[in-house]
């Protein structure tokens, strides 16, 4: 339910380890809302969303098993690139994280040379790369990506594609809302326009 409108109804989906799902559909159809539902940031009007890595586990909320990277990039202008990685590793992972690991994360996204640059000075493509670095700062099984390729250049897209492939190879799951064909091999595709109720 969003703004009094029902967005998706009578909808069931199971995503297994290593699988990927691409959400498509026109603007305003509810892709972001569905991702935020999966991230536990919105409460469903009806129905349940579960993550069962270990069935019966109740000590963690949905939000603690996933990364949600969306239009709000959660970057703070005053903090430098490397400070963001350290902050995320401690806040999200309860882990102090080694310096070397933080640098290798930045290198994986091609922003290693920007480590001491305050986020306020980054270009929009660099901001996007930094917010994607959160996926690596703390390992989590489910990645929820809302328009992840926005503002990324060709090289950035290629790096993201490699990261997603590596994540899936390790048994991770990816749900992406995108207009850009991400070339995710054998990803399921869900067209939200066909799922929506009366419009």
């Amino acid at each position, binding site marked *: 339910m969003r703004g009094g409108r029902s967005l998706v109804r009578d909808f069931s989906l199971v995503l297994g380890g290593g699988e990927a799902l691409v959400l498509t559909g026109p603007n305003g159809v509810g892709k972001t809302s569905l991702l935020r539902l999966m991230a536990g940031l*919105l409460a469903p009007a009806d129905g349940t969303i579960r993550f069962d890595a270990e069935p019966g586990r109740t000590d963690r909320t949905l*939000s603690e098993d996933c990364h949600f990277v969306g239009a709000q*990039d959660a970057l*703070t202008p*005053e903090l430098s690139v490397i400070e963001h990685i350290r902050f995320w590793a*401690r806040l*999200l*992972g309860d882990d102090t994280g080694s310096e070397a690991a933080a640098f290798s994360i930045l290198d994986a996204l091609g922003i290693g040379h920007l480590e001491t640059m305050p986020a306020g000075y980054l270009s929009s493509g660099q901001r996007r790369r930094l917010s994607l670095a959160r996926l690596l700062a703390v390992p989590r099984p489910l990645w929820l990506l809302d328009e992840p390729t926005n503002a990324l250049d060709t090289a950035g897209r290629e790096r993201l594609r490699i990261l997603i492939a590596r994540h899936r190879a390790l048994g991770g799951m990816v749900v992406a809302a995108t207009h850009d064909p991400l070339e995710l091999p054998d990803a399921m595709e869900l067209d939200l326009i066909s799922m929506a109720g009366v419009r």
Partner: protein
Amino acid sequence: MSGMMALFRRDLLLALRGGGGPGLALVFFASVIAVAPFALGPDLVLLARIGPALIWLAALLATLLGLDRLFARDAEEGTLDLLFASPSALELLVLAKAAAHWMTTGLPLAVVSLLLSLMLNMSVATGFATALTLLIGTPALTLIGVIGASLTVGLRRGGLLIPVLVLPLAVPVLIFGVAAVEGVAQHGFMAPAFLVLAGLVLATLALIPFAAAAALRAGRN
């Protein structure tokens, strides 16, 4: 615990680097005290008598100034979503943010009040008593403000609503804070008003993280 420490350190860093918030509260606090004698007239006896009340009033308003940005800024950036996604309890994260806010407003206010008490012709003993009650009492002001900040996080221009929500709750702190100044100056730490003030601080410390976390959870969208 590491999540709480990380958030505390980040907020301190932002306050130190960003300027704005904490500096503004201090300047506001000092300006109110500095101009009060011009409005009240050069009656030194009167100034000394109402000095503690003036300082407490100015501290209350200065604490509320800028508190609306405490969560609103994180909500705009998207960092608030990360707080929900942290394995640390949201209540503890709220407490970490409140602690960082107090370190950068309440604590400096208490220190600066020592200097400002001289401008109001207060005796050294009363000046120290005022600074001490501010040191003990301002955490309650910050925490009560946190309630307002967490309730209005989703509202545009929500800052306007915060004083309306928060001032009635802050009245007991103000009453016992001012009363404690005289109590401490005359009877020391066992003055009843001072003990009530400390009790109010402990009560807000125990209750408000839960209330504010609940407000944040209810307000997410």
